[in-house]
């Protein structure tokens, strides 16, 4: 059970390195089943969001992470295991082999998820958010009871940019916003655009 020892240590380490100031805007921390979806600029993103949650919420929240990065080497594998991360193979994503089914199977009726619908890390310097992949749409369609909580992360791309392996300890910002759901009769593209807007809106609060 190295999970219990490493997890609080990791949370503390993430706070020291990324110094996130956490805000909840029209949303409160809750252990109910949620999908936190965020903009993605750094490999530290899942750890920092996870560390920004209160401990009891942290316990039931699993980040989704890229298998090709997080299963390389003993250290990253250990980290991923400590975070109880769900590793998704990005190369094998196909229409008939959707990771959404895997996610739904793994979360059961207990766990929440941290996902990055951009699919890959956005352009670091511009700070823009890419178009969202359709995963969260199908996720919410199959499990309409899940609350989709938008999360905006600021400055992470400067703490650990693309292609770097040593983090620089700057301060960051994590904003949790009001949950959204798939509306009746809403098309996939409308929903994904709305989800992306809900993250972008948090940038200026």
């Amino acid at each position, binding site marked *: 059970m190295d999970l219990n020892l490493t997890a609080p240590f990791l949370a503390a380490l993430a706070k020291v390195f990324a110094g996130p100031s956490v805000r909840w805007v029209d949303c409160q921390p809750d252990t109910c089943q949620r999908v936190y979806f965020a903009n993605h600029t750094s490999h530290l993103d899942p750890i920092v969001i996870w560390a920004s949650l209160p401990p009891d919420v942290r316990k039931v929240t699993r980040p989704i992470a890229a298998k090709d990065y997080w299963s390389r080497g003993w250290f990253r594998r250990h980290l991923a295991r400590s975070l109880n991360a769900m590793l998704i193979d990005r190369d094998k994503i196909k229409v008939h082999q959707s990771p959404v089914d895997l996610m739904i199977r793994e979360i059961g009726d207990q766990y929440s998820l941290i996902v990055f619908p951009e699919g890959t890390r956005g352009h*670091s310097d511009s700070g823009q958010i890419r178009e969202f992949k359709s995963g969260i749409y199908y996720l919410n369609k199959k499990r309409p009871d899940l609350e989709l909580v938008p999360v905006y992360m600021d400055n992470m791309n*400067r703490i650990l*940019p693309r292609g*770097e392996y040593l983090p*620089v*300890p*700057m*301060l960051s910002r994590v904003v949790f916003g009001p949950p959204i759901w798939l509306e009746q009769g809403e098309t996939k593209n409308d929903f994904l655009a709305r989800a992306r807007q809900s993250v972008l809106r948090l940038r200026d609060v």
Partner: protein
Amino acid sequence: MTLLSQIFTLIAQSQSVHLLDGPTGVLLGVVIGCLLIATAAGQILKRQPDSSVNPAIVQAFIHRVRAWWLMTAILAVTFLIPTPIATVILFGLISFWAMREFITLTPTRLGDHRTLFWVFFVLTPAQYVLVGLGSAHYELFSILIPVYGFLFVSARIAIAGDYKRFLERVAKIQVGLYICVYALSYAPALLYLEQWKNTDYTTSAGLLFFFILIAQLSDLLQFVCGKLIGRNVIAPSINASRTWEGFFAGTGVTAIIGAALSLTGATPFNSWQSALMSIVIAVMGAAGTMTMSAIKRDRGVRDYGTLVEGHAGVLDRIDAICFAAPVFYHITRYYFTTLAG
């Protein structure tokens, strides 16, 4: 006061502490007394139902007094530990945090990433290690950052291969390193001064305490005098609350208080020397506040802590100390010790 001094002497003797000696104890006693009065005043002002004083100002005052309590407590605790190392580590952590606030609010580019890693994890600790090794290493710690650090930063950014706004980026990192790390490290370095010309003076803890006290007081007095009699704002677009009248009156009052504090014997200065040193600290402190305000205006933020919690950050509290520390250290070392040779 004699009772307080006796108590502190007793505490000091009982733990064979050499940092917190009698005179420093008296100075600490005076400060704690003043803080008690300030706390009481804040509470009385707060309880006033229809006070003529703006409640926001009262709240700001109470926050400020709380920050001073914290500063005093931290310094008192580090003085109780019978080695200056604790104080050096404390200031090292403050530097680290201030540097991180500075760099967070200063746009850097991807090409600066590895340079910043060096700045945070090599240059900053190295500076404080050298300070902690004592005044024998003055020659090295006083040039480490301005010579080796600055040359390294510019070359390292050049090697990274991104020429866009090159000079600007180099300057930003150098200024941050200079103010947050190099300048601040002179404050704990005061503890290592020795070979006093005034042979009655044996300790340096009182010197650091005196320095921080005067820096904070001059900051406050310049602000208060500016509110009371200020007419001509020095630079309205930089800092709207700093006036020439406030600057001169505040510096004058600081000098008088500084002269009075020399009676505690916590510093190697006689009263007129103490007054002059207080003026130096007050002038440099004002320069620091104005400079850091200019940087803040340029970045469009009110406080360095904006990204943190929406109130003032570490850098907002230490801007005066950062500018005054190297000058205060140098003058003290040059004129009051035989170290300068």
